[in-house]
């Protein structure tokens, strides 16, 4: 996509031999070129990180499984059984994840057992085939949007941990506009989405403005805002005169009007809704913003080197505020996709773990819109498959969080992966998570 400016040169100085290899004009065989292309590609690093995390996750599932542990207790009498049990546990877990998120063969089998195809469609058997994919898309939607909310500021050199606060800001607006007003069908959805964008953007703006005006580090400000909004949401939901639904003490709002629901895309049996399209459109818009506009160029320039950008006449502070505002709006849209797409009410736990998941999505996506969509779909699939996996295999759903964190940890440390697989140092790192700026910069 975008070539990093010369300032972001390799972190680890390549050893002298590597230097010799990369001399231009020197004769190189096709094999050399191919080897270099594979080894220097950040995609390779990402794939290897995925594989490594999967293997570690598999080992973890295998060796916390009681059946497996019993089998390993008899390792010396029956080693084959012990290894087989471990493999079964790990493979079973991943297969259950796959069945829950992509494709379950049993649903196809039952589809063909129906008398006629139309009956199958009518009774929802066809929907059952596509249900895992639909769930993946539903889970991926807020992940992509909040992931973009982290990735965009990341490109401008800011680290937005405030996804949670911005999500809550958007959720409050979406829910309030959703249940308190009556509007015609399409108008209501649009108004709610715009409101959610504004609600999130306000929080993002606040963090950006504080950073721009006072230089306070955005990480601390956004962490604090997360807690402020968390308690503020609890406050709003604690009183009937504010947002709590009348006639109950459940700390939950009234359900939003049905006109404000995001339209379903594939029939009433599947939960996939227009929110997924919003997420894809947002990713496209952010790609366009970053790569085809002056504003995007300024963002990337600041991210590469804020001092040089200031010298070049870019208003760094204004761009900080702007990028955080847009990011906040994206997190607000994520809230809209949850409140208007699947939950239909607002409760004190609505924000889930999106704030933290967003960081893993953005980092795995290498801070690029396309990458964020791919990472969001991958993690969305893990989220969609995990409840079924827990039921089928007894493996706790938190394995998904472990795999997620492992992937990102490995992606963020290319030198580690290179050391593990004896790869050559890349010419330019994909995501510059290495070499930080420090608190005070």
């Amino acid at each position, binding site marked *: 996509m975008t070539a990093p400016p010369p*300032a972001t*040169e390799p*972190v680890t100085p390549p050893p002298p031999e590597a230097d010799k290899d990369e001399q231009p004009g020197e004769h190189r065989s096709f094999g050399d070129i191919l080897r270099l292309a594979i080894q220097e590609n950040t995609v390779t690093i990402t794939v290897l990180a995925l594989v490594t995390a999967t293997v570690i996750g598999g080992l*973890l599932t295998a060796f*916390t499984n*009681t059946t497996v542990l019993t089998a390993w207790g008899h390792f010396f009498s029956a080693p084959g059984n012990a290894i087989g049990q471990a493999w079964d546990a790990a493979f079973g877990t991943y297969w259950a994840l796959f069945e829950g998120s992509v494709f379950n063969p049993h649903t196809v089998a039952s589809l063909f057992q129906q008398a006629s195809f139309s009956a199958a469609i009518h009774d929802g058997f066809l929907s059952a085939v596509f249900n895992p994919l639909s769930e993946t898309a539903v889970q991926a939607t807020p992940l992509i949007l909040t992931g973009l909310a982290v990735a965009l500021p990341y490109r401008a050199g800011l*680290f937005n*941990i405030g996804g949670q606060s911005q999500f809550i800001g958007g959720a409050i607006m979406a829910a309030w506009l959703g249940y308190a007003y009556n509007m015609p069908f399409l108008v209501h959805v649009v108004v709610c989405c715009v409101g959610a964008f504004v609600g999130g953007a306000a929080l993002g703006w606040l963090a950006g403005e*504080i950073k721009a*005006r*006072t*230089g*306070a*580090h955005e990480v*601390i*400000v956004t*962490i*604090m*805002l997360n*807690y*402020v909004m*968390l*308690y*503020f949401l*609890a*406050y709003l939901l604690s009183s009937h005169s504010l947002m709590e639904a009348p006639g109950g003490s459940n700390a939950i709002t009234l359900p939003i009007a049905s006109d404000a629901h995001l339209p379903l895309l594939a029939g009433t049996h599947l939960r996939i809704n227009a929110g997924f399209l919003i997420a894809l459109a947002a990713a496209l818009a952010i790609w366009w913003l970053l790569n085809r506009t002056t504003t995007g160029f300024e963002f990337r320039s600041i*991210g590469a080197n*804020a001092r040089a950008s*200031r010298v070049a006449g870019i208003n760094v*502070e204004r761009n900080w505020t702007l990028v955080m505002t847009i990011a906040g709006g994206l997190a607000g849209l994520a809230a809209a996709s949850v409140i208007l797409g699947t939950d239909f009410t607002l409760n004190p736990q609505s924000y889930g773990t999106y704030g*933290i998941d967003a*960081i*893993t999505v953005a*980092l795995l996506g290498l801070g690029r819109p396309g990458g964020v969509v791919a990472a969001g779909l991958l993690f969305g699939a893990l989220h969609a498959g995990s409840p079924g996996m827990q039921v089928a295999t007894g*493996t*706790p*759903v*938190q*394995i*998904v*969080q*472990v795999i*997620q*964190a*492992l992937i*990102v*940890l490995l992606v*963020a*440390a290319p*030198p*580690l992966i290179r050391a593990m697989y004896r790869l050559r140092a890349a010419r330019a790192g994909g995501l*510059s*998570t290495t*070499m*930080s*700026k*420090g*608190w*005070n*910069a």
Partner: protein
Amino acid sequence: MTTPASAERLPVLLSPGPRRDTAAERFGGRFAAPVTYAVFGLLNILVFGAHAHGDATLSFTPEFAKVSVPNLSLAAAATCYACGLVSIALAVVRLLDVLGIIHLGRVWRRVIIGAVLFLFIIALLVWADGGQAIAFNIVNLLSGTLSDSIPIMLGALTGVICSTSGVINIAIEGQLLLGAFCAAIATSVTGSLWLGLLCGALAGSLVGILLALFAIAYRVDQVVLGVVLNTLVLGLTGYLYNALMTGTYSNTLNNPSTFNPVKIPLLGDIPIIGPVLFDGTVFLYITYIVLAGVQIGLTRTRWGLRTRAVGEHPVAADTVGIRVLAYRYRNVILAGLIAGIGGAYFTIGSVGSFGPDMSSGEGYIALAAMIFGRYTPFGAIGAALLFGFTTQLQSILSSINVPIQSNLLLLTPYVVTIIVVAGLVGKVRGPRAEGIPFIKS
């Protein structure tokens, strides 16, 4: 992001982005302090004084105390008015100082801050208890504050050591959580509380090792790294909890005993102070020792001087022969022990059994306390106590049915932290080279 090679080696040359010195003036910084005090005074009069009624009874004796102190009965409204007037008088004194008419030393300025806060809290308590039949037990409030703040205090001290050495530690949350988890398991399995404490400390140190390895050796962005490590620990402990510590194993793996309070002879019998300061679990005394150790260590020993040099100007430190990387490794890993002990408090110090996400964000609060406390051990402890105090106050006030919005009370410390970080009350400056990896040339 990378910075040009020369700047990396000389972090001092990196000027901070915007001119932050002017920020305070732009917000009317010189008058911020007196205005704030006056606002507090007016709050005491207009909010608490005007709404207070009846008599407030403050009790200073814990249950089963040998020496009892008589209860203090105050006319609620009059006390609030008095507190407000004194606060306003202090504001005037501070204003005269700002205008240069009188000159106050640094110590007196701090005393005034403390006095205004103290008066505000007194007014709040008197207003809350005014007209209530139950006496408000001050000793319970204070001792509860102290014991509830132990994880935050120890976490913040960990942060102080890491920051002073030039490494940003956002993984305090993960250190607390893993410490709690390992302490619970170790105590349940071995039956020894002290072994549990040791394992908790080592667990915190383990996260410290990961942090040091990735931050120092692989030069991963330390903010990103900390967040990812927190996610990893959160997922891992949640997973292991569900896989191993529930159901059949809950009695063998998650059933630790807890430390009993130990009263120090003589000192523990002093009225008011004794039960608050000298009658707690071993964790309280560890906190005292660690606080004294860190304070003396950082300011009075060769180790402290070198640590500060490594965090402020690693190039200079390296020039005079201090092994910068070795210092950073050692400090980050040893500091992990402290946070691990803080985490162990959650399980073997108070609750007993482990629960998922038990630390519930207190590591982030510790981070805030560290910055709030201006990177000094005593400052960090003070800030940690402030956070603990609001939580404790909230739980006591809600138990005596005071009409106060507990959620709004809980969010105040976070707002205050944002205000402090934004430099409205004063400028917080961290160690110069914090978060910037050192490359020996």
